[in-house]
């Protein structure tokens, strides 16, 4: 079983923010999703993401990175099986799952 761990503050940026790339900024949720999450999910059985260590993650970044996975063809079931978010001190893992579930509900509505 192939595994991939992504530590956002080391692998991506220490202060990410914004939704769309490149319109909103250089280290946005869309860029993190397209360049890190989607390739890792496609090429591995398990993807572990550590969201701690950055200076702070805003809702636009988290929603686009994680809720955006649903809008890009992944299902909630698939993500529950493949994606593991390390419990975050700031509660980012819970927020990211909330955005994923909300995006799934919006798709099914």
């Amino acid at each position, binding site marked *: 079983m192939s595994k991939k761990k992504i530590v956002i503050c080391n692998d991506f*940026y*220490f*202060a*990410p*923010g*914004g*939704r769309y790339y490149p*319109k*909103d*900024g*250089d*280290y*946005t949720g869309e860029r993190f999703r397209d360049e890190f999450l989607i390739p890792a999910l496609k090429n591995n059985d398990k993807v572990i993401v550590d969201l701690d260590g*950055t*200076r*702070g*993650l*805003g*809702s*636009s*970044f988290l*929603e686009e990175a994680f*809720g955006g996975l649903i809008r890009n063809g992944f299902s909630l079931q698939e993500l529950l099986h493949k994606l593991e978010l390390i419990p975050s001190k*700031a509660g980012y893992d819970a927020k990211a799952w909330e*955005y994923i579930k*909300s*995006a799934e509900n*919006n798709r099914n509505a």
Partner: protein
Amino acid sequence: MGLKDVKRLSFEYKSYLLLRAKKIQQKQKKKSHGQKACLSTPFALTLEDNYDETVEFLTKLSEVYQYKIPRRIDFSRLKTVSPAATLMLASVIDSRKKQFRTRVKVYDFHKWNYDIKVKFMQMGLFELLGINNFSKNFKRRVSLMKEDIIFIKFRSSTKVKGELAAILNDEIMQITKEIPNVTMLHASLTEAMQNAVEHAYTDDMVEEERLWWIAGSYKKSSRKLIVIAYDRGIGIPVTLPQTHNTKLQKFISLFSLKDTDADRIEVAVTKDTTSTGKKERGKGLPEMKDYIKNSNNGKLKIFSNKGFYIYEVEDGKELEIKKNNSNIPIQGTLIQWEVKL
């Protein structure tokens, strides 16, 4: 008389005529400078205690710069400034500098109030104004100062730049040694940037006009930290869902609101509302409120167009929302977080 009969001007005579023309031009320039109207600041630039005069001055200053009207700006009357109004002043000057690539001229620097000079220097206004030749005496007095309120230099961009929020927070930490829930404050600042980048400006505006600014201040005696984000866009009341008016109206009637600018700010802060009409959007402003909600003592103040909104927490308890509408709109949206350390 043919062309060859016209007397050629000697080199000396040509030089004399050129010099004379230059002198006449200089005299006219001096004369017109004297005739330039003088735009004076009020005694206090602060939204809290002198809203009307502050906003009137900043609006006039924006117009002067927008239409390139030659004016003298007289800062010598100014005795008090708040960090928010100083950031707004910096934004007007910064906008002009970035759009027209010209330096703003100020006069009678020696007549300025000493405390104002220090506050402007701390906020980064002197860099904007190109004032850098301070006297040794001024530098010595600044280094020895034990002032109660310290301003923290503004940062600005047209993109969401988390690193600039990080720099601001680092500079605050150097003074205060602590910021409660610093990651939440950082996230709130990046959301304010996101709102400015995505919603505040219309599509026809050029990149140089689509700016946001952030800054801060710390009052030692009351241990009060202020962090501010500002954009000069069309304002929250305008950017609220044009296409989702039914949802908005439902909310407004549910809470017996009157659909003023202040009511619209309240709706935007309370609900997931967005101009995009997309369900996944509109979480930024509620997130900015959450930062204060999680503090023991704090205030979220939002000025946008004519509306003014305050959300306050005292000893861990939420107080009643305060809101009001003024006759004069501020240009854009100013968000201010105040927390007691």
